[in-house]
């Protein structure tokens, strides 16, 4: 009996929030559009293996490099694999890598940011210096170097991408904390003798969350694009799993031969996925920006 109640309560919480979003104008619509896109792609990837017409990794199910037709609506690639099946199942690597890198970034970047900016002083300056140095680093180069160092694999790719984005989390958190920690009620909390970790967790952190959410979504989008970029250079995963990134990379060699479908469909999917997250992030950041409230 408890399950329907739980479902209703989740939906019950969700629907009003969505409705309120819709009322907020174009920014709100952006967020909703983004959520729909992301959810649709996630669901498609999840049920892909069941709805795919062919085994996406089976070679020679059709003629090599045949254009889109009734039998193969998205054509076949250079190994005779069905592109439609590969598209339906191909998002898992991208999603896994970006989700993992976001989690890593969050777990490392946010606490460091909170702690360092709260403590302030020389410690904060030192940490900021290090983070700035990492930030000045050409991000893709670090990602490539680390990916080359660790070898291919979902976790390794996620790690290399995470290292690049931790500074963004740090900076956003830090700028928020710096402005919040001077507020009156934080002062009051300190005056009443609350411990630093209580202040951080209960007073400061909740105020930081809205900006973090924006960074998270942008991070997702960037992670997807960086994962595609790493695959393009040849550092993609080795598993024999359909992957939009690999199809994009492989397809390039066959463009001059006229096989545009091998590269177009995976590319569109990657753009859609990144776009979904970007919409969410952009919309949320506009909603939060008080200067735009009329």
């Amino acid at each position, binding site marked *: 009996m408890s399950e329907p109640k739980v479902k209703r309560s989740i939906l019950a919480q969700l629907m009003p929030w969505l409705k309120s979003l819709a009322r907020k104008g174009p920014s709100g619509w952006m967020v909703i559009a983004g959520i729909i896109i992301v959810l649709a792609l996630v669901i498609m990837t999840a049920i892909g293996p069941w709805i795919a017409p062919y085994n996406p990794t089976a*070679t020679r199910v059709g003629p*090599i490099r045949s254009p889109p037709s009734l039998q193969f609506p998205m054509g076949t690639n250079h*190994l005779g694999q069905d592109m439609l099946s590969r598209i339906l199942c191909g998002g898992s690597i991208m999603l896994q890598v970006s989700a993992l890198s976001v989690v890593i970034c969050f777990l490392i970047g946010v606490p460091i940011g909170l702690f360092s900016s709260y403590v302030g002083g020389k410690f904060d300056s030192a940490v900021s210096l290090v983070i700035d140095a990492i930030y000045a680093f050409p991000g893709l180069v670090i990602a490539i170097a680390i990916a*080359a160092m660790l*070898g291919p694999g979902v976790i390794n790719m996620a790690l290399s991408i995470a290292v690049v984005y931790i500074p963004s989390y740090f900076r956003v958190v830090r700028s928020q904390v710096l402005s919040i920690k001077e507020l009156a009620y934080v002062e009051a909390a300190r005056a009443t003798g609350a411990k630093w970790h209580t202040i951080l967790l209960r007073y400061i952190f909740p105020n930081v969350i809205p900006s973090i959410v924006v960074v998270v979504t942008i991070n997702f989008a960037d992670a997807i694009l960086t994962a595609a970029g790493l695959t393009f250079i*040849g550092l993609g995963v080795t598993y*024999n799993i359909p992957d939009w990134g690999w199809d994009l990379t492989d397809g390039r*060699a*066959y463009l001059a*031969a006229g096989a545009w479908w091998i590269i177009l469909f995976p590319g569109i999917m990657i753009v859609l996925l990144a776009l979904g997250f970007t919409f969410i992030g952009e919309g949320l950041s506009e909603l939060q920006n008080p200067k735009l409230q009329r």
Partner: protein
Amino acid sequence: MPEASKIELAIVVLVLIGIIVSSATVVYTVSVMSDLASVRSDVNVLKDSVANLTSSISDLTEIIRILATSVNMSLERITALETRLLEIEASLAARETLIVGTTDSIELTLDPAQAYDYFGWCILQQIAGTLVSVKPGSTTGTDYVAELATSWNYSSDLKVWDFNLREGVTFPDGTTFNATHVKYSFDRAIALIPSIPEGAPAGLGYDAIIDNVTVLSTYQVRFYLKMSFSPFLGILACRASAIVDPTYAPIAQVNYTQSDPRASTPVAFVGPYILSKWVRVGGKDQEIRLDANPNYWNLASGYPKLKHVVFKFYSDATSLRLAIESGDVDMAFRHISPTDILELEKNPNLRVWWGSGAFIQYLCFQTKRAPFNETKARIAVAAALNRSAVCDTVFLGLADPLYSIIPPGMLGHTEAFTALGDANYTLTRSLLAELGYNESNPLKFDLWYESSGHYPMSREQALLYEEALEASGVIDVTLKSADWAQYKQNRDNEVMDAYIYGWYPDYVDPDDYAFLYWASWLHTNYSNDTQVSYYDQARATTNTTLRAELYAKIDEIAVQQCSVVPLYVSSAWAVTKPSIYGVYLDITQDMRYWLISK
């Protein structure tokens, strides 16, 4: 007399004067008139002359105008002729120039003591000379012809080799080639081995093969070898054995030639071409230009056919393909993908040349630990491979399944591995069953491939090998990859269960292939004294029948042991404009540009 008569007198006198005056006037006027008349007639004569003059002048002008027009026309004709001449010159030059497109780059240097990369050797072959070379069009790789050596013989134990050298060969600075140069070149190559450990003489083992080079006379040289070595001519034909001019190649160092070869000390050679331009940017070649060597010893036979060769460098196969399609280059050799070459073949404006290949790939097993310490496991996996699927799907028929480590056409090639069959799942299952593997307990291992493009289509190959192996039902493959640096390290650290490797010959002789079955640097931890003894026997004799038998025996053992399993041999291809001919795609994989003409 009356007074009135004075007046009458005056009047008479006046009348008389008047009459005299008027008659004088009349006479004067008459004379003037006659003068006038003569003047008038003079004037008339003058007028006539003037009129004549004027007409002559206009005639003259007319003549001058006609002259000018004809001069103009001649000038125009001359200009047109000049332009035509220039055009003809340009097209002659173009007809004398071969433009080759490539994605290669010289790795380091063109010094024979150091260069060990394909493209460095390619350029060296055009500009340098060796004692012998392989006949263009060779299918076995062992038909050697005279080059800087005119004839040779060897002792029965194959340890002493004598060469008679060609006379009348000059270096660019005028020095005449003789035996001392041969000795110098080899002494230098061997002396530099410790300081150039990555160079070709080191890799080919010159110090292990050659004991000493002796000058017998001006045009006779003798090599004393440390071992009986029948493929010695193969070693002499490769670029590490190019003859250098001591003036430009100090014995103690390599001249690293970068950017403009004229700016740094050139290493002078005696080949059909000279290197007249070499530009590098950021460590990669940007332009190389070869011009005919005016002192080439074989000029009389008409070589080099084309006076100039220009290399244009593109950075990937697609750009190269577009360049040959748009006519920007006359020829492209290597680095065109199977897909592209098959498309280009359909193009009526291009000609595709096919040849036999010498590049092979093979599967190595780590024999020092499970599961491949068991011979049966190795044989089972080898039997489950489907080479034809790979050759058809990945290489579109441009590679051939290989059943012996020695490629077809060469001495000692067999079809030994056909004994195991392709996708021979019955054999696989029965062998694995003996080891306790079955459907519920499949043989699990990691299959590694190289991921940075060092070998062609590695990933696609691996996907197909995995598919074929798993189709047996009793094998579970996990694909793993590493870029070249990591791959080599993994090989040396022996972390890979099974791994795909490739081989490009240094010299085209079965001696340079057969040892792959047990090569120590492959780190398979496999050794077999019988195979090694057959190998040593084969290199100690020149009897081709005997050698073929020995290599066949090596193959037989290889099939029973499966330490290294040959996979495929690639074909070779080149694409040119239809006007190009003289392209030899033989088993040496060398392109002899001096044989090509338009």
